[in-house]
């Protein structure tokens, strides 16, 4: 069996798809943060602005792992180091 350029490209596309499974984690994390934020606003509606800021900051940081996988998927699709 010959491992030519197209084989590598197809496998890279599959790999890019698999890399995006990592989007699951940030989704759960951000949803949990949003839920806790909502509960906090329900308990203390006066502190809505501060809770909102903290929640958005935490969500933006939690998004990082998903973005790593996104960067790898983009790398595999458009700047593949395996095919020259």
């Amino acid at each position, binding site marked *: 069996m010959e491992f030519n350029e197209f084989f590598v490209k197809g496998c890279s596309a599959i790999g890019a798809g698999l890399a995006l499974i990592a989007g699951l984690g940030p989704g759960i994390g951000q949803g949990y943060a949003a839920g806790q934020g909502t509960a906090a606003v329900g308990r203390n509606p006066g502190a809505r602005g501060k809770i909102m800021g903290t929640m*958005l*900051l935490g969500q933006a940081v939690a998004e990082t792992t998903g*973005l790593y996988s*996104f*960067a790898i998927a983009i790398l595999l699709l*458009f700047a593949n180091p395996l095919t020259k």
Partner: protein
Amino acid sequence: MGSISLLYGLFSRTPTVLASDIDIGVDGLLKYELFGQTLWLTTTHVSILIVLMIFTVFAIVANRAIKKTDPYKKPSAFVNVIELAVEKIDGMVAENMGTEHGMQFANYIGTLFAFLLVCNLSGLLGLRPPTADYGCTLSLALITFMLIHITGFRYQKLGHLTGLCKPLLLTPINIIGELATPLSMSLRLFGNILSGVVLMAIVYGLIPQVILWFWPGVLHAYFDVFAGCIQAYVFCLLTMIYISNNFSSDDD
């Protein structure tokens, strides 16, 4: 399936969209040689120059307006807005870094925030956001990295270096943790803005023309305005937190 492709053929500019039609990359515009290296002037440089031009014009206009203002009279609306922005940024720095050592960084944080904000929003002007280029975000993160360690050596002297080996066994992990800071900061900003660019390019490339008249506005509002503002704020906030961690050593 047949009807969908027929509709698509009627309304789209091109019957089939090739992957090469979708432009998400950085395009080289001008090639030149410097010290034996082949370098490119890219779309990122052009976007940054346009952003800097906006800033220069704004700075000149603001400077004129402030000089003309009489401190004993009511300021004009424009001067009021500038004062509001400066006060907000000063307040943000004072809240996150403390007023004791923190205010010396207010200028840098303000510049960084304004630059990132205009860069991230420049997608609305039809530019490719400069922050969707890893070279731009990495250099910003490296400035933060330098500032973190310069501050550390200034306020803790050699304690900054010995603080890395505090639990002796964890020294390698501490060093990797320090090196990962600029990497994660730059990748966070880059990934967020790039995902917006890629998604918008796919939407503009693949959706029939009729839908394009109203639908992408929602996506622009989310990816350019919301994500752009949040990421500019997060980058500045993390810079402030990392720098102010080094004002005093951990053990006191």
